[in-house]
């Protein structure tokens, strides 16, 4: 039993515990800057511990826990996302002044939970990590507990999350009944070569449960409400970290445990992908609140990512991995810009972004770049991500799905461009330009550079994604 494999998660949990203890016993020392420093240091330390593990596959805890290229890829993505979210959370932490330590600690614990989830290769471990992450998110969504909207978001997330895990659990129970196993690879070993109706029922329930995590239609309905109501940094965190881990576990379960039903799950995922991207884009067209619009946009993005999973090949997986990296950078750039913009104007209405270009050119530029990347315009990250995913799908014969995807991208350009149009073309009211807090500015710069870098140097990052995807299929 190699506890060392868990070190990166232990560091985060330890830092969270340290924060709570510091706040309880030496409140004078627990200043925001110090706490953020500790948190980011723990993230960095965790990443440093992880990187050397990328080369080899190691399992521990009776095969319940795995560290390989695939998990390291996702964990580094999660750590980077958490790091950037923390950088951009200054305003949020000001607003929850009396519970700063708990806020940061919960984010760290949620990250640890997602990292455990990514590494879980056994159903019980998977379930309990998932619940730990879900409960953290429910709290974080409700963290502005004096705000009607935040607490409503928390309630909705909590209830639907509980239901989704119930369905997931039912699917796991059936899978356990069929195979008598909870280890993913043992499940695959015990499955008959042809799927039975019971297995398909289980697969459907599992997909529904995971569909909730990744916001696939029709399991996505919590997404816009929670994204709108939750504190914006938490929304940013949910939209990237939770989603990335959700996709990681979908891929892990489908690939490792259910290869015998591959033909069936490919059909189901393709169906989900088609519905998800279409509904996401079409409803995004008529949104007036930027966070809601971005929520529907993330739903649409989940649809594109599902296209890559539906391809069912190594190439599709690599494309999904790359897509998630591109998506993380892009969405974080967008949300970080939105945090700052809406914080200044005290409004999340898209109409109030008018003339932003004059007031804060850098913010407007960052938001415009991220939106164009989401729309999939070259040479930004989103463009290459879409190319890779669509190409993999074409190679698997899913031409109809790719055509739908391209049509959807065209539709999406409309609402993304609308925001840019408002920012650049519509004169806005005068407001004194203010300076963003340095950490937030840094987060914004890093993400925008990422959006360009992942695009222009896509082949380099795609190479990493391919290597990570290969470790899974071995």
């Amino acid at each position, binding site marked *: 039993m190699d506890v060392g494999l868990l070190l990166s998660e232990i560091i985060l949990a330890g830092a969270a515990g340290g924060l709570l203890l510091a706040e309880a016993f030496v409140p004078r020392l627990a200043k925001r800057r110090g706490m953020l420093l500790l948190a980011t240091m723990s993230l960095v330390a965790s990443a440093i511990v992880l990187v050397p593990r990328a080369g080899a596959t190691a399992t521990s805890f009776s095969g319940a826990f795995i560290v390989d290229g695939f998990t390291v890829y996702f964990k580094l993505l999660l750590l980077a996302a958490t790091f950037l979210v923390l950088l951009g959370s200054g305003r949020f932490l000001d607003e929850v002044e009396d519970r700063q330590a708990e806020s940061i600690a919960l984010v760290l614990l949620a990250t640890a*939970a997602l990292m455990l989830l990514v590494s879980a290769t056994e159903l019980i471990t998977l379930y309990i990590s998932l619940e730990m992450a879900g409960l953290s998110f429910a709290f974080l969504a409700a963290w502005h507990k004096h705000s009607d909207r935040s607490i409503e978001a928390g309630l909705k997330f909590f209830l639907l999350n509980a239901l989704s895990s119930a369905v997931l659990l039912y699917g796991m129970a059936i899978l356990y009944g069929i195979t008598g196993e909870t280890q993913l690879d043992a499940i695959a070993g015990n499955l008959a070569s042809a799927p039975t109706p019971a297995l398909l029922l289980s697969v459907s329930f599992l997909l529904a449960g995971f569909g909730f995590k990744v916001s696939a239609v029709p399991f996505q309905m919590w997404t816009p409400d929670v994204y709108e109501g939750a504190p914006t940094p938490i929304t940013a965190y949910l939209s990237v970290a939770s989603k990335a881990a959700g996709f990681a576990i979908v891929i892990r379960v489908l690939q490792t445990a259910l290869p015998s039903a591959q033909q069936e799950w490919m059909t189901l995922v393709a169906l989900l992908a088609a519905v998800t991207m279409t509904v996401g884009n079409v409803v995004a067209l008529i949104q007036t609140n930027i966070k809601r619009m971005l929520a529907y946009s993330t739903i649409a993005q989940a649809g594109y990512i599902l296209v890559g999973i539906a391809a069912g090949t190594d190439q599709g997986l690599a494309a999904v991995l790359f897509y998630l990296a591109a998506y993380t950078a892009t969405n974080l750039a967008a949300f970080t810009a939105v945090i700052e913009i809406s914080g200044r104007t005290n409004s999340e209405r898209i109409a109030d972004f008018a003339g932003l270009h004059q007031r804060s050119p850098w913010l407007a530029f960052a938001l415009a770049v991220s939106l164009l990347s989401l729309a999939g315009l070259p040479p930004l990250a989103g463009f290459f991500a879409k190319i890779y995913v669509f190409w993999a799908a074409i190679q698997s014969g899913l031409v109809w799905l790719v055509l739908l995807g391209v049509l959807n991208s065209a539709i999406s350009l409309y609402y993304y461009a609308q925001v840019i149009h408002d920012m650049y073309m519509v004169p806005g009211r005068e407001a004194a330009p203010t300076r963003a807090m340095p950490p937030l500015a840094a987060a914004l710069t890093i993400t925008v550079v990422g959006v360009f870098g992942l695009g222009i140097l896509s082949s380099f990052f795609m190479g990493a994604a391919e290597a990570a995807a290969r470790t899974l299929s071995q």
Partner: protein
Amino acid sequence: MVIPMELLVAGGFYTFAAAAIAGAISLIIARNVFHSALFLTLTLASAGGVFVILGADFLAAVQLLIYVGAVMILILFGLMLTPQDVELPNLSTPGQAISGAIVAAAIFVVSAATLLSAQWSGTAAEPSDVATTEQIGVSLFTTFVLPFEIASVLFLVAMIGAIVIARER
């Protein structure tokens, strides 16, 4: 007259199962939330009985201790902390309630039909009745030590969050 063991088991199972389902249905029908809570207790306790019959004695104990002992108390506290008109409103709008019932029925039909038609390879005629407590205890600290440890952190998360969200300030 010797009543066959099988019959005893069957009688117990049906009794507990009926009580569990009746409790669950009554939970929905009850107009008073405190009554709902009591029916929930009935369902949970009956489920514990089913566990015993299915050979899960340790689990039955856990069910009674945690569910009936802890969760029910928690729910009752919750009910008392949110005083309101406990009688009304009861069900959702008819449309919501009926469509909900239809979907629930569909879930039942689909899962029951699938599970009943399936071939469960190598199932025993009757549940094994070895003592499970020790086995489960050992496996919790060997095979499943990781989820066990994660569960402890999960409780930490629940504790921090609940304190922060539910406290007055």
